[in-house]
């Protein structure tokens, strides 16, 4: 246990990142008790109030209490990211293992699709999908839309990792001792990949959140939901910056920055675990 704490002391990144994310979670949880989440709906409170004791984050033009919006919207944004990220990495892992282990034409097809899919800018495809769906998206639908592309990058990177591990000696030995394919995958390869998978997952979550915020800022998100991206959409729509309503854009901006910084530092920290060469030498 002590070795664990000692390691944390050296892996500053992981600690900082996790700290930021925990802070956000705490903010949301405590927020739910402090603030009436119903005030995150439009027409709840007096509009365009600058920050005060009553409304610490101010209110927006449609009469939403921005603190309530942040408290309600942050978990939504995070949820989209996590669902899409987990789905993406889940699908990606399965595909990657299949492709890397069985090689042959299976590998060519999977890799071909992933490569071509990655050349295309994801946001644009998402736009096409989102525009094509009738009647706007709900939060969960958005997660699925983002997930539909989220598996591309994980598939490619995990496949590369598996390929490099596959050539290592212990896999040969396992194969020679008669272990079956899937068994080798689970008992030999997977444990060694866990740190790498964790890093990929956090990465995927980060990309998914970015994609969802992107869609929302363009106005393609769930229109009524008080998510972070939609708030920024309204900010842009109402030219909040020019009109001097600085609190309106500052709240979501700060929260988004914290989310991304937190995820980024966690990724860097996990990378260090996955790739010991990056560890700071004595």
């Amino acid at each position: 246990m002590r070795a664990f704490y000692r390691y944390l002391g050296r892996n500053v990144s992981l600690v900082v990142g996790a700290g930021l994310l925990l802070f956000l979670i705490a903010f949301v949880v405590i927020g739910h008790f402090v603030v009436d989440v119903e005030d995150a709906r439009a027409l709840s409170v007096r509009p365009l109030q600058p920050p005060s004791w009553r409304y610490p984050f101010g209110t927006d033009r449609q009469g939403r209490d921005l603190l309530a919006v942040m408290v309600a919207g942050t978990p939504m944004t995070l949820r989209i990211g996590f669902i899409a990220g987990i789905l993406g990495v889940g699908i990606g892992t399965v595909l990657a293992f299949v492709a890397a282990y069985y090689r042959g034409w299976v590998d060519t097809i999977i890799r071909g699709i992933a490569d071509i899919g990655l050349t295309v800018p994801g946001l644009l495809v998402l736009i096409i999908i989102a525009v094509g769906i009738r009647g706007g998206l709900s939060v969960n639908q958005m997660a699925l839309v983002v997930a539909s592309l989220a598996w591309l990058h994980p598939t490619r990177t995990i496949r590369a990792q598996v390929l490099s591990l596959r050539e290592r000696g212990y896999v040969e030995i396992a194969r020679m001792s008669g272990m079956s394919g899937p068994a080798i995958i689970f008992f030999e390869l997977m444990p060694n990949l866990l740190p790498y998978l964790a890093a990929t997952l956090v990465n995927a979550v980060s990309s998914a959140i970015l994609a969802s915020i992107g869609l929302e800022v363009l106005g393609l998100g769930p229109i009524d939901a008080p998510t972070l991206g939609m708030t920024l959409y309204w900010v842009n729509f109402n030219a909040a910056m020019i009109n001097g309503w600085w609190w309106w854009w500052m709240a979501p901006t700060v929260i988004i920055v914290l989310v991304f910084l937190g995820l980024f530092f966690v990724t860097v920290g996990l990378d260090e675990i996955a790739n010991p060469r990056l560890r700071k030498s004595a």
Partner: protein
Amino acid sequence: MQFRDILKRCGVFVVIIWLAASLNFFLPKLSGQDPVRTKLLQQAQMGGYVQQGIDEMVKIYEVRFGLDRPLWQQYLSYIGDVVRGDFNFSIANYPRTVADMIAESIPWTIALLGVTTLLSFLIGTILGALLAWPRAPRWMAWLMPPLWALHAIPFFLLGLILMYLLAFQVPLLPIFGGYSMGVTPSLTFTFVLDVIRHATLPALSIILVAVGGWALSMRGMMVTTMGEDYVLFAEGKGLRSLTIFSRYCLRNAILPQITALALALGQILSGAVLVEVIFGYPGIGTLLFQAIRENDHFLIQGIVFTVIVSLGLATLILDLFYPLLDPRISYRRT
């Protein structure tokens, strides 16, 4: 590079184009929405009263837009049109064609993206390389944390922050647009200056964020390269520091960076679209935003297709250019 490989790579490009076009065509149709009817209904609503004869109008426009023919016919003629660069009319800005509107916006985006991508790649890569080199100036290490932090956030967020700081609080740079309002574009010096002033904030938002990423990855690559045997031998040969840094380390470490550039183009573009929207910069991004707001399906499809093709082309060029840098790839034993 063997001719066969070049052909294969171009083939992939063609496949991408075809896939993009088909995606563009089929996905919206899946939703069952009829863009013409929707648009007409919208406009009728704005008119304020119930319009008679909507159905006849819809039919006429459908014929005009070619939407009344069987699906496979539509698809084939769509592919034919696309190959010729005809993206149909813009529903919202009829009778302007989609192709016209794209042609107007695309130079702005190319200018912004081209300059920022190049600058951030070059600055970031050299910075990253220097950061890895033990004999680089000390103060450089201080640049890392801020760049590190910056690179984690999306371009447009930094755009908002910069907009607030440099355009609003301190009115140093313009908030909005590609050029000052009421000015007609012309190739005069003052106009060009005006354009540059307006492009500064969007460009900065992209460059400041992207530099960190390139620097980080280059630093990692340099560290790996510096541990290679040939760098050890280079030192054993008594080569000068500069020689080892440039010809042995940098030259090798930059290869994966360029690959990364080819892969990152899509992401950079996605980020740039949002930056344009925030700043109202008259490029493809703002056009797309407008098209989404107006539910102008043809325009959206046209833009998405154009972007995919341009990116595919850029990636293709980079891919073909790469073997020139890495002799291990270009050489094929006959």
